[in-house]
């Protein structure tokens, strides 16, 4: 408690806030919000549609690639089925890909692969690995070892053991995580565009740069609507799977 109080005092004391500037900005903020209303879907309608579609493609491709990359990493990062050196290596891969925000990764991949959706896809795929492999590995670690052992006792090979002993146990979680990641990747595709990774983020950034706040509001509303749809449908699919 005391530590928290000391920290708060220190943090508040050293945070430089230019209150004058904040105060000055408030009326501007009001103007800003007024500029958002009413949202203008029409005048940049084609660009918005293009951006949204590009974001959706990026989401689909990067989720699939990300999951394909994550499965071997997750197997390696599960303590109960991987040898120790492999375990440490895979955990390190996960830690590194989790440390960096999508945007930071995107800056580098845009430099390496050039502007456009490809850099965005690579970014989201790598980011998916950190998330998906970590949670899947935890699920594999929590599985019932006796089932896997029973399959092994029938004399199955390594792949058969994976496919019949482990895969059925983690499948519900696997599907749930994939849907969740699909949702996250769509939301993140809205920001990788700000640094040049394509998708709706690029459209949004352009709208801000042109001070077309009514178009920006339209884009934000479209993003919120799609995320809401995704959230509802994913909860239905998850219920249907279980």
């Amino acid at each position: 408690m005391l530590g928290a109080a000391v920290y708060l005092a220190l943090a508040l004391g050293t945070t430089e806030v230019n209150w004058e500037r904040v105060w000055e900005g408030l009326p501007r903020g009001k103007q800003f919000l007024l500029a958002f209303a009413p949202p203008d879907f029409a005048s940049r309608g084609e660009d918005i549609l293009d951006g949204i579609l590009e974001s959706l493609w990026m989401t689909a491709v990067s989720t699939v690639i990300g999951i394909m990359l994550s499965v071997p990493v997750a197997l390696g990062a599960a303590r109960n089925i991987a040898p120790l050196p492999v375990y440490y290596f895979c955990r390190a891969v996960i830690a590194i890909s989790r440390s960096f925000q999508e945007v930071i990764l995107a800056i580098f991949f845009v430099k390496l692969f050039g502007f456009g959706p490809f850099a965005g896809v690579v970014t989201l795929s790598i980011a998916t690995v950190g998330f998906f492999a970590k949670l899947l590995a935890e699920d594999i670690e929590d599985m019932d070892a006796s089932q896997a052992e029973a399959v092994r006792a029938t004399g199955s090979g390594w792949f058969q053991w994976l496919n019949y002993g482990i895969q059925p146990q983690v499948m519900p979680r696997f599907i749930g995580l994939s849907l969740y990641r699909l949702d996250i990747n769509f939301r993140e595709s809205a920001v990788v565009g700000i640094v040049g990774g394509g998708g709706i983020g690029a459209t949004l950034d352009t709208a801000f740069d042109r001070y077309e706040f009514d178009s920006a509001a339209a884009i934000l509303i479209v993003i919120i609507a799609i995320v809401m749809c995704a959230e509802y449908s994913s909860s239905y699919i998850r219920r249907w799977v279980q």
Partner: protein
Amino acid sequence: MPTSIRNGSQIWRRRERGRQLAVWAAWFSGTLIFVYCFKLISDKTTWLFVLDAWTQTQDMAYRMVPPNWSYLNVLWRPLWDTINIATLGTVIAVIIAVPVAFLAARNTTPSVAVVRPIALLVIVSSRSINALIWALLLVAIVGPGVFAGIIAIALRSIGFVAKLLYEAIEEIDPNQVEAVAATGAGRGQVLAYGIVPQIMPAFAGITVFRWDINIRESTVVGLVGAGGIGLELSSQIMELGWSSVSIILLAIIATVVVSEWVSAKVRHAII
């Protein structure tokens, strides 16, 4: 047990024929969607730049190594700012998210028809707009600096904290609440003695979890001018100071690892 007959003998099958076909069809359509989307992406890609990537990687690695260690001295202040953005942002978010969560939970909301949908809309809007976009807006309104970052992180976290918290509230044991109400407790007392003790562990866990995520997020809000280490990162990238960039990246990894360790410790202590 599903079986099939081949050469007169029964053979074990994993699934019935219809189910097997359904699974196969799902895989097939999934693959089609993937290939089609990939084609659309690849049409928009300049492959010349992609093929060039290996040379670019080597070039970048050459510039980033060795890291410019002396630059570390400049970084302490932005790092401290980054941690403050995450912590103060989490504190503000929690203060706002708690009432929102109580308004959104089916069993504590004053009105299911009016208040609950509004609370849910607040949660969804805050969750679907990334901290970076909030920061972009706030930098224009309150000016560049740490303050914009704190508010951006707070606005973004409200939805997350409120969503997990209201799910926890909906899962509480109603018997305990009833028992407290049966003693003649008022609405506020029921809240304080019947509900709050039940959600306290979940609440603490969610807060620490979000703080951990916020440490990561606060490293990027600086890219659009909202203070912290992201500001240094973007300025060094602009100046092509790659050897300093590698130091910043190492500092970010170190911060994230420490924060993850701290949050694991705290969660362990709570649960």
